[in-house]
C-alpha cells in the first residue's frame, strides 16, 4: 500500500519532494527499530542469562526456597488481582454510572491512593496494627487481655501484603475501567433493559463484558506491579520471586543466578500476556459514534447510603488512615528531619521523576506513532518488546542496565587510557543517565499503553485526510494527533511521574554515589524500624504524588463535562 501510494505520488508530483519524504520514512523506521532494540537491551541481557552456565546455587534454591517463591508469587497475584478487580470495578461502576450524594467527591478522591507507595502503606499499617501499636494496645486496655490471650490478624503476612497492594493498586483498574464505562454507549445498557434484563443482569451480562479489555488492561498492569513489588513483601518477610532475586544477588552474590531467576519470572508475565491477548481475539470493541451525555442511575435511600459507605471505606483504608498516621508521626518528628538536605532530596526526586516521565512520553509517542505508520510485523514486535520492561522487577532491570553500561565503561576506559593515557573509570554506570535509562525501560509501557489506546481511538480517515491535505507524517502527529491526544498524553506523563516517585529497588542500585531520593531515604529509615522518622520523607512522597493525581483528575472531569 505504502509503496503504491508513493509511486503514484511520484508520477503526479515529480521526483524530488516525494523521494525526500520516502527517505524520511526509512530513517524513521530505522530509528524506531534501533530505539526499540536499545530499550529491550536490559531485558535481552536478562533473558540471555538463561544460556549462561548454571551455578551450584541452583540446586540449593531448588531444594529449599524455589517452591515458596513460586507459590507465594502465584498467591500474591491471585489475591491482588481479585482484590483490585473488586475494588476497582465496583468504584468505577458506581462513580461512572450511578448518581448519589458525594459522587463528584468520590470520583476524584478514589484516585488518591495512587500517591501511596505500597511499602509506605505497609510500614504505616504495621505501626498501627502490630502488638505495640495503638489498636492492639487499646484492645488490651479495654478488655484486660494480655499477650497470647487473644487472636489478632498478623499484618506481616502474605494476606497482609495482598491487602496492602490491593489498596494502593486498585486505582489502575478504577481509572481504566471508569473511562471504559463512560465511553460505553448507554444504548447498549438500555437495549439490555428493554430485552427484559434487570439492572444487575445488565451489569454482569453487558457492561462488564464490554469493558473487558479495560479490565484486562488494568488488572494486568496491577499484576505486573504486584510481581515487581519488592518493598512490601521484603518488609513483611514474604518470600516471593523479587525478594528471592534480591537475596540471591545481595546475599549470595550470584548475579547470573539472580538474572536467571528473573527470566523465570518473565515467563510468568509472558503467559499472562498471552492469555490476555487470546481472550481478546475476534472481539472488536468499537465505540459508538453517537456520544451522548451519560445517563446515571439515581440511587436513593439505603442504596445511596450503602454506596457512600463502601466508597468511604475504600478511601479511609487506602488513604485517609495511613496518611493521618504518617502526618501524626511526621508532626512529632519533622523538626529533626526537615533541613537543607531534605530540600535537596525533594528537588532531586521531583527532577528525576519529571525528566523520566518526559523521556518516556517522547519515546512512547515515537514508537506508537511509528507502529501506526508502519504496521508490519517487525515494527509491531519491536514496539511490543520495548513495552515489556514494566513486567520486569526494578532490581532486574537494574542488573540488565548495569551489565551493558559497565561493559561500555570498561571499553571507554581502556580506549582512553591507550590513546590519551587518561582513565575515565565508571563514566556512565554510576551516573544519572544509567538511572534515567532504567526508568525509561521500566516505565515505558505505562506511557506506551496510554498513548496507543488514545491513538487507536483516532480513525485512520483523519490521518488520510491530513496527509492528502499536504501534512507530513510528523505534521499529522503535531497538528492532528497531539491536540486530540492531549488527555492521553497528560495521563501518560502523570502515571510515569508517580511511578518514578515511588520506585525503590532500581533507584537503590543505580543511584549515583551520595545521591538520595525520598523513596530511598524512607526505605532506609523504615528498615531500621525508625517508622516515625521515615514518616517525613514518606509523607513528602505521598504529597508530591498528590499533585499529578489532582491534575489527572482535572483532565478526567474536564473530558466528561465536554461530553455533557
Amino acid at each position, binding site marked *: 500500500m505504502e509503496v503504491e501510494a508513493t509511486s503514484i505520488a511520484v508520477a503526479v508530483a515529480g521526483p524530488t519532494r516525494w523521494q525526500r519524504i520516502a527517505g524520511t520514512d526509512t530513517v524513521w523506521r530505522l530509528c524506531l527499530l534501533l530505539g526499540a532494540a536499545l530499550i529491550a537491551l536490559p531485558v535481552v541481557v536478562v533473558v540471555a542469562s538463561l544460556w549462561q552456565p548454571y551455578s551450584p546455587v541452583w540446586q540449593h534454591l531448588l531444594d529449599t526456597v524455589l517452591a515458596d517463591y513460586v507459590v507465594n508469587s502465584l498467591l500474591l497475584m491471585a489475591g491482588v488481582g481479585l482484590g483490585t478487580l473488586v475494588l476497582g470495578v465496583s468504584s468505577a461502576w458506581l462513580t461512572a454510572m450511578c448518581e448519589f450524594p458525594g459522587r463528584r467527591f468520590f470520583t476524584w478522591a478514589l484516585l488518591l491512593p495512587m500517591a501511596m507507595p505500597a511499602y509506605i502503606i505497609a510500614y504505616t499499617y504495621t505501626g498501627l496494627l502490630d502488638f505495640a501499636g495503638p489498636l492492639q494496645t487499646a484492645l488490651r486496655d479495654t478488655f484486660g487481655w494480655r499477650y497470647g490471650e487473644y487472636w489478632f490478624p498478623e499484618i506481616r503476612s502474605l494476606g497482609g501484603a495482598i491487602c496492602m497492594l490491593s489498596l494502593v493498586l486498585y486505582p489502575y483498574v478504577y481509572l481504566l475501567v471508569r473511562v471504559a464505562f463512560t465511553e460505553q454507549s448507554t*444504548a*447498549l445498557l438500555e437495549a439490555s433493559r*428493554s*430485552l*427484559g*434484563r434487570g439492572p444487575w443482569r445488565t451489569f454482569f451480562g453487558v457492561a462488564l463484558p464490554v469493558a473487558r479489555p479495560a479490565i484486562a488492561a488494568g488488572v494486568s498492569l496491577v499484576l505486573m506491579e504486584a510481581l515487581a513489588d519488592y518493598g512490601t513483601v521484603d518488609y513483611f518477610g514474604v518470600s516471593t520471586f523479587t525478594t528471592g532475586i534480591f537475596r540471591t544477588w545481595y546475599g549470595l552474590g550470584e548475579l547470573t543466578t539472580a538474572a536467571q531467576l528473573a527470566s523465570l519470572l518473565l515467563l510468568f508475565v509472558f503467559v499472562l500476556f498471552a492469555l490476555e491477548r487470546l481472550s481478546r481475539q475476534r472481539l*472488536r470493541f468499537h465505540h459508538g459514534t453517537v456520544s451522548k451525555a451519560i445517563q446515571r442511575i439515581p440511587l436513593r435511600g439505603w442504596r445511596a447510603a450503602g454506596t457512600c459507605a463502601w466508597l468511604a471505606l475504600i478511601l479511609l483504608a487506602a488513604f485517609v488512615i495511613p496518611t493521618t498516621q504518617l502526618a501524626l508521626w511526621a508532626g512529632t518528628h519533622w523538626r529533626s528531619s526537615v533541613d537543607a538536605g531534605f530540600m535537596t532530596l525533594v528537588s532531586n526526586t521531583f527532577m528525576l521523576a519529571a525528566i523520566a516521565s518526559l523521556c518516556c512520553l517522547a519515546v512512547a509517542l515515537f514508537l506508537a506513532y511509528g507502529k501506526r505508520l508502519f504496521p508490519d510485523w517487525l515494527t509491531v514486535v519491536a514496539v511490543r518488546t520495548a513495552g515489556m520492561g514494566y513486567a520486569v522487577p526494578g532490581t532486574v532491570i537494574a542488573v540488565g542496565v548495569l551489565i551493558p553500561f559497565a561493559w561500555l565503561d570498561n571499553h571507554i576506559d581502556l580506549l582512553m587510557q591507550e590513546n590519551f593515557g587518561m582513565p575515565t573509570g565508571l563514566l556512565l554506570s554510576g551516573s544519572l543517565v544509567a538511572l534515567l535509562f532504567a526508568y525509561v525501560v521500566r516505565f515505558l509501557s505505562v506511557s506506551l499503553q496510554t498513548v496507543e489506546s488514545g491513538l487507536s481511538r483516532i480513525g485512520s480517515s483523519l490521518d488520510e485526510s491530513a496527509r492528502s491535505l499536504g501534512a507530513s507524517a510528523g505534521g499529522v502527529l503535531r497538528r492532528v494527533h497531539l491536540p486530540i491526544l492531549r488527555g492521553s498524553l497528560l495521563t501518560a506523563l502523570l502515571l510515569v511521574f508517580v511511578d518514578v516517585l515511588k520506585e525503590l529497588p532500581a533507584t537503590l542500585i543505580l543511584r549515583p554515589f551520595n545521591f538520595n531520593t525520598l523513596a530511598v531515604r524512607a526505605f532506609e529509615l523504615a528498615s531500621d524500624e525508625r517508622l516515625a522518622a521515615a514518616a517525613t520523607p514518606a509523607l513528602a512522597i505521598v504529597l508530591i504524588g498528590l499533585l499529578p493525581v489532582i491534575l489527572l483528575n482535572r483532565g478526567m472531569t474536564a473530558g466528561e463535562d465536554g461530553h455533557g
Partner: protein
Amino acid sequence: MAEHLKLRDVSVHYGAFTAAHNVSLSLQAGEIGCLLGPSGCGKTTLLRAIGGFEPLSAGEISLQGSTISGVGNTLPPEQRQVGMVFQDFALFPHLDVGRNVAFGLSYMNRSQRAARVSDMLELVGLGQSGRAYPHELSGGQQQRVALARALAPKPRIVLLDEPFSGLDSELREQLAGEVRQLLQRNQMTALLVTHDQHEAFAMADQITLINGGTVVQSGTPDDLYHRPIDAFTAGFIGEGAVIAVQVNGDGTLDFGLGLLQAPVAAQYAGRSAGLLLRPTDIAYAAHSSVSLPVAARAFRGAQYLYQLQLPDGQLILCLAPVSTNVSVGGLLPVSCHLDALSLFEPS
C-alpha cells in the same frame, strides 16, 4: 377497538428544562406510528419515556390498557415487553449475532431459543450470519440484526429511534419499505422516531408532528401534506412557500397573481393571513396572461423547480416541465390551481 398504546398529557422535564409538554397520542394494534420533528424537539425523549428510560413529570402512558408510566410510577424497562431499535443499533460487541438475538430470550429453554433465533434471522434475511460478530456486518445488516433482536421476545410494541439515520440514503428508503412490510406481516404495533419526512411517509400510518416538546399536528401523511394546520407544519412537510396575503371581506384573496375566488374561513375575512402554495399549485401555462420573473431554478430531471418573484417581492415555487427552460431573469407564464386553501395566522 381499544387503543393499544396511549399517551395522555405526558410531560417530561430535565431539571428546569421541559423536553415534552402535554403530549397525547394513541396507536391502534398493528398500526405503525411516527413521531416526526426537527432535532431537539423532544421526540426521542417521548420514545425513551415509553421505553421506561425517562420518568414522567405529568400524565400517563398505558399499553394494552394497563398503565406503564405515571408520575412517580415508572415500570422498569425490563418488565414492559417493549422492543427497542436504537439509532446506533447498540448491538452487543462481545456477543455474536445469534447470541445478540437470543439476549432477550432467557425465559425460553435452549431448543426453543435456538429455534426462535434461527426463525428471526431467517425473517430478516440473515440466516447464515448467526456466528458473525456485529463488527463483521455491514450497516444494513447490523440494522436488521437490531430489528431481529428487538422482535425476538415478541414485544407488545416496537420502538424505533432514528433507525435509518446511520445508513446510506439509497439504502434508507429501501430498508424503510422492507421494515414496514416485515412489521405488518407480523402484525406488530410500532412507533418510529425520525426527523426525515420521507422515512415517515415510507413507514407510518399515523404521523405526529412534534415541535418544541408539544404536538403540532397528528394525522395521516396525506392530512399533514394537504391540510397543514399552521405555518410550521406547512414549512416542515413537503416543499412550498407561505406568503402573506390579504383576505377581503367578500371572501376573495388578493395576492400577486390577482384575485382568487375561494371559500375562506370566516375568521380571516378582512384580515391578512399566510397562504401555503405548493410547487404543484403553480403550473406552467403557455398562454397565461400572468408571467413572473425567475429568481432561481433547480434542475430536477424531468422538471425544473423555479423560484418566482411576485410583484410585491415575495417568492413562490413552481414545478414546470424541463422543456420550459427559462433562465434566471426571464419570464415564466403561470397559472394558479388551488384545490384546498391552507390559510394560517400571519407570522
